């Protein structure tokens, strides 16, 4: 009997402790959004990153583990603009969680709060994997990232009103540090202005837009299609006339094509982290941009 009372007491204590410990369950489609949710949500959110820097966010399988995570999520933070169209709708339909359906407050699409680039006038499959809502890789422009942070903070406050002041404070703190960092990065990146780079996939449009870098060509003949020998030969001819400073790829893209073009043209290859966790040092959003700039600057010297 005494044992039973003890158990009941422990259970009651645990139950009482729950509300205080209850964090908002955030399912981030990509590591950059997990990092941003952690920046603006602090200890009030529990973040799960559905993908890593070593996975192509276009091509993720609707795995059972992800369905289980979406089932319990209170907020999805994703890129949107169709980046996750191959897997997120399936997770949403399978998980039976109405809080995170499209159009609900529990579904936050980062690309929808910023101005997007490369919105096509028409979409045809012969153009490859193009997104009707524009290029979705918006996180690589720190100015847009700041806008997204503001919108995400407001969304967190909407879903968790008790924490509204806390989120506002976190956002103010993050914004201050981030704006200082942007000023520092822009000063650092001055030598990159006007540089020409060859990209693997069009992941870098926003970074280039921010830094004034020109995209000289892509290793993929069309977005989403693997490169071919013919395409590389054509690219090399173009580069012979108008040279580029470097060939850029992410941790999740095979470096074979980049190496081949590099051997043909003598242009150096640079692997960029692309997202948090994509390189040593890219442990958070600040680190992501530090490492990216370091490597870009290292290649132009």
């Amino acid at each position: 009997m005494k044992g039973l009372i003890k158990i009941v007491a422990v259970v009651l204590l645990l139950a009482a402790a729950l509300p205080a410990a209850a964090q908002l369950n955030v399912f981030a489609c990509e590591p950059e959004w997990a990092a941003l949710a952690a920046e603006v949500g602090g200890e009030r959110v529990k973040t799960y990153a559905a993908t890593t820097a070593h996975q192509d966010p276009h091509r993720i399988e609707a795995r059972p583990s992800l369905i289980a995570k979406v089932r319990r999520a209170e907020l999805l933070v994703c890129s949107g603009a169709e980046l996750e169209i191959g897997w997120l709708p399936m997770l949403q339909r399978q998980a039976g969680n109405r809080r995170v359906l499209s159009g609900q407050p529990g579904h936050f699409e980062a690309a929808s709060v910023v101005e997007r680039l490369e919105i096509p006038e028409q979409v045809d499959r012969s153009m490859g994997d193009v997104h009707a809502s524009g290029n979705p890789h918006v996180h690589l422009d720190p100015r847009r990232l700041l806008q997204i942070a503001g919108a995400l903070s407001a969304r967190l406050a909407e879903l968790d009103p008790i924490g509204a002041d806390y989120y506002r404070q976190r956002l103010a703190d993050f914004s201050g540090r981030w704006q200082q960092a942007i000023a520092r990065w822009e000063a650092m990146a001055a030598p990159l202005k006007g540089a020409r780079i060859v990209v693997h996939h069009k992941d870098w449009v926003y970074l280039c837009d921010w830094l004034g870098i020109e995209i000289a060509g892509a290793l993929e003949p069309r977005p989403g299609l693997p490169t071919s020998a013919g395409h590389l030969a054509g690219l090399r001819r173009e580069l012979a006339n108008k040279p580029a400073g470097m060939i850029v790829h992410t941790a999740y893209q095979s470096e074979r094509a980049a190496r081949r073009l590099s051997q043909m043209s003598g242009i150096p290859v640079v692997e960029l982290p692309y997202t948090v966790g994509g390189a040593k040092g890219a442990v958070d959003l600040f680190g992501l941009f530090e490492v990216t700039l370091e490597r870009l600057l290292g290649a132009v010297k």
Partner: protein
Amino acid sequence: MALSLALVAGAAPAAEGGGFNPDISLILDGRYSAYDNDTEYELPGFMLGGEAGRGEEGFHLGHNELAVSANVDDMYYGKMTAVLHDHEGETEVELEEAYIETLALGNGLAVKGGRFFSGIGYLNDQHPHAWDFADAPLVYRGLFGDQLRDDGLQVSWVAPTDLYFRLGGEITRGERFPAGGAGNDGAGASALFAKLGGDVGASHAWQLGLSHWQAEIEGRTSGGHVHGGGVAEVPTYSGDSTVSGIDFVWKWAPNGNAIERNLKLQAEYFVRDEEGTVVMDDGSASPETTRYDGTQSGWYAQAVYQFMPRWRVGLRYDQLDSDNEGADEEVLGEAGLDDEGHTPTRSTVMLDYSYSEYSRLRLQYAKDDSYEDSDNILTVQYVMSLGPHGAHKF
């Protein structure tokens, strides 16, 4: 201009099914097949029905389907798939799927109603264009006539746990093969299934499934027999039928990045028990008949490996077994339920090439010992998809 403004302002179209126009998707599937045998196909010990068969010889069309789907509103999703195929020179339209599904019940619950592929097994609710081989495993051919689908209701629930756990139940009409007769006032079949799944590290993912299906069958027919100039006799079964199954899938991709290389291992086992009566229906008042008590089972295991972008190679082994007893062995034999002392097996190897994720070309070879005359089957196939095409299941 107004459109681009709307886009910039953040009124982005929802990712899928949210537009005003439904998603229309077309699958094109064409084949060339070469066989060594000319004999009529049979699967000793199994009464064939549904789509079961070895397929046509030479150039022919496969599974061409047109699907229309969209969110009806914020509560329901709807989908219809029509399959067009040729049957004896005429093009037939078949309503493959037509269902609605709830979107927003919450708490892990979903209800589906209409005509749909049953949630049993692993391969069953996948469309043939998503299969890794040009044809269904033998156990699906023998037990379900390639795939089990019916008209009815499905309720499923996903548990709020870190380990994926989904439980589903179905009550269906029970008129289509392998059921028949729409017993129990048009609710003659039911199914239960459970799925468990998760990850092991970043590179591995798995799913385990258990299924059970049962039906009260009234007059299930299978392919008719004609005896030299006589009347056709149609083997007809009435009685109970239960099918139990287990399925397992394991997928590997280095760091979970499947673009360069990935491996998929999959195996399923089903066993069916039936007890009832077989009648050789020849239209007469007193057809031949026998009491029948049978067990049929089968399994397959397959591996599909993408060794470089665009290229995959696959290997599959099938095996069936049956143990059917009846009062009149001769009638059982005429109904195709005599295993003729033969264990049906088949070994298949395939190579496919996908220029993009929307197009696939496949070369497949099978050593088919599913009946007594061993056959060599070569198939060349294309499968292409046009239009918005929803994500595939795991």
